[in-house]
């Protein structure tokens, strides 16, 4: 035991030891004196004294062990004993370790996701000093003028920087290759304290209007794209078709400031005008695209900084009032105040989207683990009963109850710690699998490395479960009176009943908990089903979406419009394309466009009521998406530049603004930002469709013809309906567009995938809760089966006697099944109460049903009941098939 000795060496000079040493040397001195008084020489007397005392070094060692390591050693003895006894029953050990390991592993997996997304602080200097600058109401998006004003006027933060998410396209034309990037302000790296591993990072001197195109890249990007060579610095990187000079590579630990996204390229905000030469984004007072983070002075706290920023707010907002807003909006803008909130773990929109869902899943897996604990406790109870004889002997020869409980709990802890090892291995696989599920197109990146918090969590859960499932059986096992147990040699019938009672309680608990999980799963699966089968107003199957961006082709406005139309015609001619159309927006596609609408005779109660959502489309858009035209006509060649402005509206818009289902020929007007109001004639009415998300309230939508757009949009989306697989069209479409111009960028997806991606969260919740609900059910059934089998075995004599006395086998079957029935009924009754109390926590994730949906409740209880009776049927059948003579002979 090398570490023993090491520990001893370490402790040898401790105060306790020196006390004993002083005492022993006193003893030796006294003995020497006495021996000398008897006539021995001093030398002999000292030797004799030492001999009588025994080898002092040995003594010292032994003394010390007794004093300080007595406890440790007995613990080790317990561990050795536990390991031996587990080795003796490998079947039990493997079942227990695997089931607990998977249970703890599921908890660790979900927790490590939650940790990576929500808890982990940024890998920068003093992350606790980081704050996010927000508006008083919690919003946190800035325009560039607002950010610049804040930077100039603030005097409370030791550093402050802005950044905006931007996907940069690495390809110069053809299919896009997007990498996640940031626009960053000059102080980004200095404030965070992030250093380069190669070259240099951006600094304040790089951030000025008209700055050159330079870029800093992540370590991973440098490795991947440049093979990690030093001459990457100074080379040219094409971003969105523009050459940027690579000036440095950042530290590998740093991947941006938002969890869930691995930022690869960092370009200065001022380079915006390089990518968009004609854009006024940097001076636009209503173009919101930046987030602002800062670092507090050592002496400041967030509250003090907020107070100071609030005092500066009127000056900052007053200087950046959006010119295009109406008077009311401008007044509101002047009244905004700034504040800061702690942001040691950066910012993340994913956090709001998935944080609560992960918490709910943590609750689910915790319950699954509890049910698994129930089974292990059940196994331990059975083991404890078999061990009663051994325990009784130990007690009879003087072992204290506490000491024996410790021995048995050590065994449970050993089990659970071994499970923790299984758990960590399983969790690494499972959390990577979960990230894969969450990530719709490789866009999710989480650092799942094991950190102290995850390991601590796993160990904590393992220890808690070990104590939880070990303590009660240990307490019961050691509670028997030694005499009684010895006398019956462990075959005490009365105690078996007691053990059955404990087993029954466990099974009822397991049934109740699994019912509440099944109900939760039922609700989430029901939600997903409703979302997937909801009438969206369009047919998502069989549609290829092509997002095309002619920006780099260098077309004039007119050329661009003509090319887009030509491409549409060519797409329509492709074999396999049933119909094709173009639009600015596709449903559930992540972008939106809206404005207030004015209609004669309509007065909105609140201004928000007058908000309508827009799209601009070619002809045949409704035909391609299979959205029904209810009245009037689709766009056609009559709707050209210069002719009267027209629009097609949806039914909700017709009802809300015109109070009639088919307001053909009527007009509405819209005032574009900074322009004069335009009036549109309604020429058609189409069915309602979902616009931004499946679970939204249907909104009023107006469609305008692309052919009447004054300033055509840069990017355009084509929709291609086909009878085959939509992705089969991709090569032909890609070829077609490259031939039109090699520098046009395209991106492909299917409408079905885009809709599915919007349902990622409900789908994951339904899948995982369904999976864990099934696991819980299975575990509870194993518990039920085990308990009943035990019950039947221990009642063999009684049942044999009944059969011998003429009881019908059917009655015996009924007797056992009645016991199952009682257990299940009590379990369901408690489970319903638990479910009603706990599913409320899921309310935020439900759609189209309430947390107390009676159908789900009844159905779940029925599933549980049927499966439980099936699990109980086998032991019952065995009981009924018992050979009475054999059973009686055994006694």
């Amino acid at each position: 035991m090398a570490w023993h000795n090491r520990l001893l060496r370490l402790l040898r000079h401790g105060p306790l030891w020196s006390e004993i040493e002083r005492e022993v040397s006193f003893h030796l001195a006294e003995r020497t004196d006495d021996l000398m008084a008897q006539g021995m020489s001093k030398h002999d007397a000292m030797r004799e004294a030492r001999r009588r005392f025994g080898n002092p070094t040995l003594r010292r060692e032994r003394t010390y062990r007794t004093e300080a390591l007595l406890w440790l050693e007995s613990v080790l003895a317990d561990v050795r004993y536990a390991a031996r006894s587990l080795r003796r029953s490998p079947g039990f050990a493997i079942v227990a370790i695997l089931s607990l390991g998977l249970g703890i592993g599921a908890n660790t997996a979900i927790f490590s996701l939650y940790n990576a997304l929500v808890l982990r602080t940024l890998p920068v200097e003093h992350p606790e000093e980081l704050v996010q600058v927000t508006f008083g109401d919690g919003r946190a998006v800035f325009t560039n003028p607002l950010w610049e004003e804040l930077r100039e006027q603030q005097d409370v933060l030791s550093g402050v920087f802005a950044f905006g998410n931007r996907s940069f396209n690495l390809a110069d034309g053809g299919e896009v290759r997007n990498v996640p990037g940031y626009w960053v302000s000059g102080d980004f790296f200095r404030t965070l304290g992030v250093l380069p591993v190669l070259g240099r990072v951006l600094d304040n001197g790089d951030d000025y209007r008209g700055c050159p195109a330079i870029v800093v890249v992540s370590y991973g990007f440098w490795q991947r794209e440049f093979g990690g060579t030093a001459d990457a610095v100074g080379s040219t990187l094409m971003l969105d078709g523009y050459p940027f000079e690579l000036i440095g590579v950042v530290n590998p630990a740093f991947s941006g400031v938002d969890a869930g996204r691995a930022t690869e390229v960092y370009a200065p905000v001022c380079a915006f005008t390089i990518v968009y030469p004609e854009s006024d984004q940097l001076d636009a007072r209503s173009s919101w695209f930046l987030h602002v983070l800062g670092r507090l002075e050592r002496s400041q706290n967030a509250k003090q900084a907020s107070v100071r920023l609030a005092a500066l707010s009127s000056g900052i907002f007053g200087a950046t009032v959006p010119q295009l807003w109406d008077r009311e909006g401008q007044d509101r803008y002047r009244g905004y105040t700034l504040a800061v909130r702690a942001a040691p773990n950066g910012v993340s929109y994913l956090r709001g989207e998935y944080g609560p869902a992960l918490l709910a899943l943590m609750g689910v897996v915790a319950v699954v683990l509890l049910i698994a604990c129930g089974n292990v406790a059940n196994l331990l109870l059975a083991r404890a009963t078999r061990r009663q004889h051994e325990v009784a002997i130990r007690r009879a020869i003087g072992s204290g109850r506490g000491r024996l409980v410790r021995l048995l709990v050590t065994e449970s802890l050993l089990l659970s710690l071994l499970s923790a090892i299984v758990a960590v291995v399983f969790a690494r696989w499972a959390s990577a699998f979960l990230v894969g599920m969450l990530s719709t197109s490789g866009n999710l990146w989480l650092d799942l490395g094991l950190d102290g918090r995850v390991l601590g969590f796993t160990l904590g859960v393992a220890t808690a479960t070990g104590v939880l499932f070990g303590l009660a059986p240990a307490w019961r096992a050691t509670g028997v009176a030694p005499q009684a147990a010895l006398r019956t040699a462990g075959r005490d019938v009365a105690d078996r009943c007691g053990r059955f009672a404990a087993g029954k309680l466990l099974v009822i608990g397991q049934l109740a908990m699994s019912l509440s999980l099944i109900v939760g799963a039922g609700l989430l699966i029901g939600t997903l089903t409703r979302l997937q089968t909801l009438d969206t107003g369009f047919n998502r199957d069989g549609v290829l979406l092509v997002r095309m961006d002619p920006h780099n082709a260098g077309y004039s406005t007119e050329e661009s419009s003509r090319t887009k139309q030509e491409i549409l015609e060519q797409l329509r001619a492709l074999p396999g394309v049933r119909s094709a159309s173009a639009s600015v927006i596709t449903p559930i596609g992540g972008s939106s466009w809206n404005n207030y609408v004015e209609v004669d005779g309509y007065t909105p109660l609140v201004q928000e009521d007058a908000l309508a959502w827009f799209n601009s489309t070619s002809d045949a858009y409704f035909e391609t998406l299979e959205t029904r035209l209810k009245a009037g006509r689709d766009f056609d060649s009559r709707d050209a530049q210069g002719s009267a402005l027209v629009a097609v509206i949806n039914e909700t818009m017709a009802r809300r603004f015109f109070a009639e289902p088919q307001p053909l020929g009527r007009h509405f007007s819209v005032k574009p930002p900074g322009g004069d109001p335009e009036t549109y004639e309604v020429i058609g009415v189409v069915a309602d469709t979902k616009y931004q998300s499946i679970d939204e309230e249907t909104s009023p939508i107006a469609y305008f013809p692309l052919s009447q757009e004054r300033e055509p949009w840069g990017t355009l989306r084509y929709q291609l309906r086909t009878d085959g697989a939509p992705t089969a069209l991709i090569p032909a479409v890609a070829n077609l567009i490259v031939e039109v111009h090699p520098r046009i960028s395209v991106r492909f997806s299917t409408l079905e995938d885009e809709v599915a991606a919007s349902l990622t969260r409900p789908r994951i919740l339904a899948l995982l809760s369904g999976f864990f609900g099934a696991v819980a059910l299975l575990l509870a059934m194993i518990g039920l089966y085990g308990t009943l089998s035990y019950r039947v075995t221990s009642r063999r004599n009684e049942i044999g006697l009944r059969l011998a006395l003429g009881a019908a086998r059917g009655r015996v079957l009924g007797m056992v099944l009645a016991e199952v029935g009682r257990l299940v009924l009590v379990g369901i009754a408690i489970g319903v109460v638990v479910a009603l109390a706990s599913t409320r926590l899921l309310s935020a994730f439900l759609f189209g049903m309430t947390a107390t949906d009676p159908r789900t409740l009844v159905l779940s209880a029925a599933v549980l009941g049927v499966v439980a009776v099936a699990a109980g049927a086998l032991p019952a059948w065995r009981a009924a098939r018992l050979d009475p003579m054999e059973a009686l002979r055994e006694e």
Partner: protein
Amino acid sequence: MAKQKNDILQGTLALLVLRTLEARPRLHGYALTSHIQTVSDDLLRVEEGSLYPALHRMEQAGWLRSEWGTTEKNREARFYSLTAAGKKQLHQERESWERLTKGVNRVLRNA
């Protein structure tokens, strides 16, 4: 030299220490050893090496308390005395000892 069979029976050391300290409060370890040996007319000899660990265990159990002091020969030594808990413990151990010896004696006489 043949090993004499006069080492103290495992488990009775505590009883002897407690009893000795009841009769003579404040003894150091060496005095305890000599005293037990003398009073038992050299029949019992404390295994010196295990005395000190035993004393510490008993002190931790609350049966003894100890303090450093000086002997007549002006040497530093640790003096032990009995606590109330120690008295109670002595009472219990004495009873069970008597039961044991009575039982053993009966068996020796009658079996």
